[in-house]
């Protein structure tokens, strides 16, 4: 089982769209896939038409008092399941802090699922906290959608710095440019000449596209209603690139 976290301290950079579209593509490969919507806003759950609520409460789930599998819901796509968001996740840091080993807590929670799923996508909330640290520990790769603007690059640097300070493996970080609008000079410049502090930057980038916004109307991944759109194709390229990083010999 490979754990792929989609993370950024900043909000509104396309984390959920990435989690939904990539997990959909993974399931199309026939891989058994789970998305865990860790963001209390529940956008990923909404996209999959599943109520953002964990029966019995998210707290027990995060504390490990209930198995994750009890809360999993099937999506409209075979091989693709969702662990819905819960409003209680806003206090996730607090729950995680109270556990014995907060840094490894998420890995421990996910372990029982390792037989059943090939991929787990973690759609992370925009923050940096104890819960995020647990994500950094559990993830095999950390996808960091980054808008090609000065402020976003600054945020990316902060993540890198944090990884270095806390001795996380920075090789896990795979940044990519998201919401790219090539009509804007700054976007163009940054995409064409990416800064040197972004090693591991994926070649694929996600354009700013109206189809991505329509996901909220259609409540479905792009592959379901705009499979041949430019944005959908960009996600496909990105998924291929990520797989080649995860399985270098394949």
């Amino acid at each position, binding site marked *: 089982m490979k754990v792929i976290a989609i993370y950024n301290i900043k909000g509104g950079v396309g984390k959920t769209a990435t989690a939904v579209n990539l997990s959909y593509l993974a399931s199309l490969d026939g891989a058994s896939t789970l998305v865990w919507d860790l963001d209390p806003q529940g956008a990923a759950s909404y996209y999959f038409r599943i109520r953002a609520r964990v029966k019995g409460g998210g707290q027990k789930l995060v504390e490990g008092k209930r198995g994750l599998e*009890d809360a999993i819901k099937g999506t409209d796509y075979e091989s693709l399941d969702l662990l819905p968001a819960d409003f209680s996740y806003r206090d996730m840091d607090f729950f995680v802090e109270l556990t014995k080993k907060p840094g490894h807590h998420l890995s421990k929670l996910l372990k029982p699922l390792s037989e059943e799923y090939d991929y787990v996508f973690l759609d992370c909330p925009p923050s940096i906290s104890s819960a995020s640290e647990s994500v950094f520990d559990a993830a095999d790769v950390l996808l960091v959608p980054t808008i090609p603007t000065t402020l976003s690059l600054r945020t990316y640097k902060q993540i890198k710095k944090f990884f270095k300070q806390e001795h996380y493996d920075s090789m896990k970080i795979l940044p990519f440019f998201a919401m790219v609008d090539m009509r804007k000079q700054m976007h163009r410049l940054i995409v064409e000449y990416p800064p040197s502090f972004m090693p591991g930057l994926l070649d694929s980038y996600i354009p700013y596209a109206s189809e991505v916004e329509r996901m909220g109307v259609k409540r479905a991944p792009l592959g379901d209603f705009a499979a041949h759109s430019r944005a959908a194709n960009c996600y496909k390229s990105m998924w291929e690139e990520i797989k080649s990083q995860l399985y270098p010999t394949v």
Partner: protein
Amino acid sequence: MGLLMAIKQLDFVFPADHGFSELLASFQNNFYVKLQAETVNYRVFYDTFDWRLYNNGSVLEVHEEGQSRRIYWRADKDGDLKIQLGLRQVPQLATDLADSEFCRQLQSVISVRELIPRIKIKIKHLPLVVLDKNKKVVVRINFDEYWYFPSKTRAGVVLDKRITIKPVKGYVNEFNQVVGFFNPMQLSEAQDNIMKLALAESGIITTEYTTKLNLLLDAEMPAEQALKEILLWLLDIMRQNTAGSIRGRDTEFMHDYRVSIRKTRSALTQINKVLPQGIISKYNKFFSGLGKLTNPVRDLDVFQIKLASYQHDFSIAAQKHLQPLRDYLAQSRAEAQNKFIHTLKSPEYRKNIKEWRDYLENTEPTRPPLENTNKEIYKLADELVWNIYQLALEEGSAITDDSEAEALHELRKTCKKLRYLMEFFQSLYAENKIRELIQALKGLQDNLGEYNDLHVHRDILKTFSKQCADAEANRACKKVIKFLEHRQVKTRRRFAERYASFSSLGIQKEFRDLFVESHKGRA
């Protein structure tokens, strides 16, 4: 384990005389349903020509769904559920696979035989989903029609109609409601028996293929009729092994084909004065030509297998230096096989085979009859077996420790003739008695065969040595020749003991009882 994990998909057989459309209409009155695009999928069952997987309870099948291709394997009938293999294509031979548990399991069942697609099932797949008020999928249902096409020219038949109800995680109540809808229909649970149904439809009997002559001859039938039946049976073995011989990877096809040729020639020449001499000469020449083409292929096959088994008798260095020999063997085999395949594909070959079949299927008796044409087959069988047995004893008794290899070679050929005759006519004799005598003969044949193989292998090595410029390879080759000579001496030493057993008074009496005495009084 959570409650959700306990819910499994349900597969039901749909009554053959019911249509899906009526059911669907009724279902739509009760549930909010969305029909999805109908697709056509395939299940292809792979097996060897002689059904080794099926007969062992193993399953190797490919599910083709659009671009997706999944391969499933079950080792045997006692094994767990089928597992999906991470392979992109089905191997042709077990040796095409890297060493793995699957490779070992497969090899233990199919040995050297080739895997070929044996049964293809077409599945017309109509999926639908049950939605909740938010248009969220809560249950999946598949209506599947399983079609089997026995051949390209025959119309397809529906083997089975099935309904699969698949739960969606987290929607237990909805699943139960759908199951509740189907409950009053009292549908029976579907089994994983599609291949069995297809086999029943096709009339294929998976245990049918054997090179053992299972002909039931009537003791009093005229010799001509019996001989034609034997020859037709052998021709059928050739036919069954022709396509596989042409494909060329599974050496067993050519082996079975070749043995049928040898038996055909043996029957033609030994069961004499039954068919016209012109026929015997013509087809003996034809089959002799074919047989000669198979000789080098088979000799090289056997030598390659033997050489691999000798490996551990040589040093690592010698093994390395034998690589040019291995390359030579592989290349020589490929050349010899190409010649054979070229002949099998030729119009002339097809013409001769057709004429041969036409002749054998013609039931008109030969006129004027020859000396043995109308003789009751049991009488002729007694005479022929007894005479050739006497010859074997005569030749065998003359062999001493100083006899030339040629004498052993002659005895080997005589024993082979005897063996073939006994097999042709075995249904005319008490089964346990003739089987016992064949076993006694087999013990001697094994010894003579091994001796002859070693001789042939030394000849191959000598031919290779003459044209090989690599000094190291030649040195390694000489070591193998010496090794083979040593083995040949040991085999030769065992001959006397094997022959003594075969020619014992007890066995001689049994031969006499069976082939001289048993039919006495019948006439």
